[in-house]
Each structure stands twice: as structure tokens, then as C-alpha cells.
């Protein structure tokens, strides 16, 4: 009895091994299909849901990038689109240039760390303040810039860095940033404070830590810094911006690796840059000033 069983197991193994062997070379057949010079005609686009442009972002989506029904309110992407906020309006502008009506745009919730998960994506593109980085671009496609970003430092009035005028003044500060952001890299590479920065899952956690005086300041992108100081914090203050870097940092929309849609989105972004749409949106949503920290 035992012998038969063992033989059966072995046999099954061999059969399956033979059966699977053939598939091995063809393993990546379904993976990447780069259509050379793909047509950006709406009908020929390879979409997650036919006839719809599915756009991802995180939930909740915060001003000034997205705005809910009320002023300064975050937007929940599972509810009715408000078409307010820099990224939301940019997304609709891109969609329009690709030939989609507003009704054909569908939103889906994609947390930041799901945007680069391997396997098929559930969005056509994801717009969520994601900075381009050559290493990141090995896993996903990035569009061209829809916003050139600067980092800034937020604190509370009266804190020990509230009056900092230069990066040197931040050396002794305990700073915090959101996980996975280039803000964290900015702390480590450019500010290089003496104490190790704290790292949080969300900007809201960083705000809690700032309020609890566990950290002296938060480093975030400049528009978010303005929103934090004005809305999310009582007595919040933007200490200043970190001077722009040589190789400028920018936000791009994220697409599946080698997506044929990437070129089309780039064309759309170029168009809304050329016709002044993006400048207008920037004036509308992302204005504010703060000194540059030398």
C-alpha cells in the first residue's frame, strides 16, 4: 500500500513536471505588450474597464490636491467626484484630452504602496503626488511632470525651529516625514539633522506627533505644507522651502510598466501645459509663499 502511494506521488510529480516544462519559456508571453507608436485614439486604448478611464488615488485624498464638498475638506474617492483640487482637475483635463467625457472617468482607491504592486493594475493611471525616481521607474511607468515640487518644513509657532532661517538652523531638530516620500530623503540627504528622523505611515500621524511635541517639524511637499499650516494645525507655520535641487523633483502619474497609455498621457500633459491649463490650476490651488532656506 505504501509503495503504491509513493509511486503515485512520484508519478504525479513527473507528469506535472513534464506538463509544466513546456510553459516555462512562454512564461512572459502575457506580461508585456509594448505597442510601438500606439494610437491614442480612444477606441483603440487598452483600458482596465472598456469605455472608461479608471483613475486611482488614495483615500482620503487631501487638499489642495483634491477637495471634498466643503472648502478645505478631504475628498473620499468612493463618493461623487467633486472636480475640485489640483490633481483632480488635472486628471479630468488629461481625460478630456484623451477623449473621455467627465462621466466616463471612474475613480478607484489605490493606497500609495499598492500603486507599484506587481501584476495587473486596477487603474489606468494613478495620480497621488508620487515623485519620479529612476529606480521607481524600473517597476512602473511614470508620466512626464504635471507639477514640479519643492519640499518644505512645517512646525508650530513658538517651536525651537519656528524662526529657522537656514538649513543649518534645522540641524538640531527632530524632524518627521511620511513613509515612502522623497521628503524623508530630503531630511536625510539635504538637512542631515543630528537626531534620526521619525517616520510615519501617513501625514496625519506625523501631525499627531508634532502636536504631541514628539517632533519639532514635518517635511512635506510645499503645497501640502501650506495646507497643513493653514488648516490641519492650530498655530501651524511653514518655516520655509528647501531650495530647488539641480535635478528637479516632479510628480508624475503612475501607470503599469510599459503601458501603451503612457505616451498618450504624456501627450495630454504636454497639451494642458501648452494651453496654460496647468498654470491656471497652479494659480488656483497651489499658491502661497514661504522663504527659501539656504
Amino acid at each position, binding site marked *: 500500500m505504501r509503495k503504491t502511494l509513493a509511486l503515485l506521488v512520484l508519478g504525479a510529480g513527473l507528469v506535472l513536471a513534464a506538463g509544466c516544462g513546456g510553459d516555462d519559456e512562454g512564461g512572459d508571453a502575457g506580461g508585456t505588450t509594448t505597442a510601438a507608436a500606439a494610437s491614442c485614439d480612444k477606441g483603440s486604448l487598452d483600458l482596465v474597464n472598456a469605455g472608461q478611464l479608471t483613475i486611482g488615488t488614495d483615500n482620503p485624498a487631501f487638499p489642495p490636491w483634491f477637495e471634498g464638498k466643503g472648502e478645505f475638506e478631504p475628498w473620499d474617492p468612493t463618493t461623487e467626484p467633486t472636480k475640485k483640487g489640483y490633481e483632480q482637475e488635472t486628471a479630468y483635463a488629461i481625460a478630456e484630452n484623451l477623449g473621455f467625457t467627465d462621466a466616463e472617468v471612474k475613480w478607484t482607491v489605490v493606497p500609495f504602496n499598492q500603486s507599484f504592486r506587481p501584476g495587473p493594475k486596477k487603474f489606468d493611471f494613478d495620480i497621488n503626488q508620487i515623485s519620479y525616481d529612476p529606480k521607481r521607474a524600473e517597476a512602473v511607468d511614470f508620466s512626464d511632470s504635471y507639477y514640479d515640487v519643492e519640499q518644505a518644513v512645517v512646525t508650530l509657532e513658538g517651536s525651537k525651529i519656528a524662526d529657522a532661517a537656514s538649513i543649518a538652523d534645522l540641524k538640531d531638530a527632530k524632524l518627521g516625514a511620511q513613509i515612502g516620500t522623497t521628503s524623508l530623503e530630503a531630511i536625510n540627504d539635504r538637512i542631515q539633522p543630528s537626531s534620526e528622523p*521619525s*517616520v510615519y505611515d501617513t501625514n496625519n500621524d506625523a501631525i499627531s506627533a508634532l502636536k504631541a511635541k514628539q517632533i519639532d517639524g514635518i517635511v512635506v511637499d510645499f503645497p501640502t505644507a501650506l495646507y497643513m499650516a493653514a488648516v490641519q494645525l492650530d498655530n501651524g507655520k511653514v518655516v520655509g522651502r528647501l531650495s530647488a535641487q539641480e535635478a528637479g523633483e516632479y510628480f508624475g502619474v503612475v501607470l503599469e510598466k510599459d503601458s501603451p497609455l503612457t505616451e498618450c498621457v504624456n501627450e495630454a500633459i504636454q497639451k494642458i501645459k501648452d494651453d496654460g491649463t496647468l498654470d491656471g490650476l497652479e494659480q488656483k490651488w497651489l499658491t502661497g509663499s514661504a522663504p527659501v532656506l539656504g
Partner: protein
Amino acid sequence: MADRQRAGSRVDGSRTSRILGGGGAGRSTLIAVVSTVAFFGLLILLVTSSPGWPQVKEQFFDWDIFKESLRAIAPKLLVNVKIFLIAEVFILAFGLAIAIFRSLPGPVFFPVRLSMVVYADFFRGVPTILVIYLFGFGVPALAISGVPRSEFFWGIVALVLVYSAYVSEVYRAGIESVHPSQEAAARSLGLSRTKAMRFVVLPQAVRRVIPPLLNDFIGLQKDTALVALIGPVEAFRQSQIEVAANFDYTPYFATALLFVAMTIPLARFTDWLIARERRKRR
């Protein structure tokens, strides 16, 4: 608790290893080898022949990123070890205190027993992650003077509170497993209730619960990663940073290996203790 222990000793007790199936003859070994090779061979084939494998391989098992991230993550594991060692000392003490208070007899001590029951129920019921958030961000925000603000401190406090509740139950089971005749005998020799507990009941109880205690500590070693939520950068957080920088999940795999490497010695030590206990009792 006694059940857990008994199940443990049964596994280790049989003369031939359970893992190899027992029975003794070389033929069984052969069958075991063939079946193992076939089973794992099949599993590997199934995974590597799946259509998504090339991309998964690239994003989860990238050798260069593995080496690079391991260098960044390994030093941060010391933070986990530090949290674990500090917390463990307090957990052992608090857990025992709670268990003893809960075992106090007589109606006078009812409120004490009641508070210990409420404590254990509450902290075993609330997810650890919530306790860490509440203590990590909540208490320092009260801005009471003299109360530390360090997120490291509050992370350890939260772990101590939660694990003391678990550990107190382990101790209590140990105390209750000591036959009442032991205490009766001690009292009849003229020992006070306290002394009977200290010199007769506890030594037997603690020895019995060492394996399940170590089991809880294996859990604690892993839960040190939760402290990252309120700010400190430890191994898991460092791996998240590496993942986000590369958009590649290999650093998670590296961290998993580090944690396994950290917990395996304790797991084997527990097994060894159980086996030794078993030999002694025979």
C-alpha cells in the same frame, strides 16, 4: 495551559522523530525523501510556471536590492532587540504581579481581583496596534509636565501593557495547575500564605509555564515592529523605506528572513526546555 504543554511534550517524547514519520526502516526514509522532493518540486513548479512569475520574481526576489537593503535593515534590527529586551523584563514582573493579585483569596481582595480581571480582559481584547497609537500619540499630547514624550518609551509601555495581560494568564494557569494539597501541606508546616506562595507554589508554577512564556516572547519579538507606527525607525520601517525608494518588495523578504533568524533560536530553545522538562518528570 496545561494542555498546550502536554501537546508539546508528546511531540518531542516519541523515540523516533515525528517529522520523519517514525517506523524505523530505511524504506520509510526513502519514501519520505521521494515524497518530499515530489511535493516541494511540484510547489516550486506551480509557482515558477505561473504567468505572473517573471514580474513577481523581479519585484520580490531581486538579488542586488536584497544585498543592498539587508545592509540598511540589519543594523535597525538592533532597535527591535532593544525594545524586546527592555519590554520583556517589565512584562515578566508585571505579569507575575497581576497573576498573584488575581489569586488573592478572600472577600476583602475582591476589588483587587476585579481590577486584575478587567485589566487582563481589556488589554487582551484591544488590538496591540490601537494601544500603541493611543499611548504613543495620546498620552504625550496631554503635555503633563514630567511625563516623557519619547515615542520609543511609549511604544515599550504599550507593549508591556498588552503582553503583561497575556503573560499574567500564563502565570495564573501555572499557579492553578499546582495541586491545592501543595499549599495545604505548606500551611500545615506553619508557612504563612505568602510564604507558601513564594516558596512552594510559585517555584513549581513558574517552571511549568516557561515554555508557553517563551512562546509569548516569540510573539513579542515580532510585535516590536508595531512600534514603528509612532515614529521610531526599526527593521520593518527601514524595509518599508527601502521598498518605497525602489518600488520593489525584496526588502520585505529580507526583513522576513531577519525576523525568522531572530525568532528561531528562541523557538528551538523552547523545544529543548520542553524536552528537558519531559525527561525530568519521567
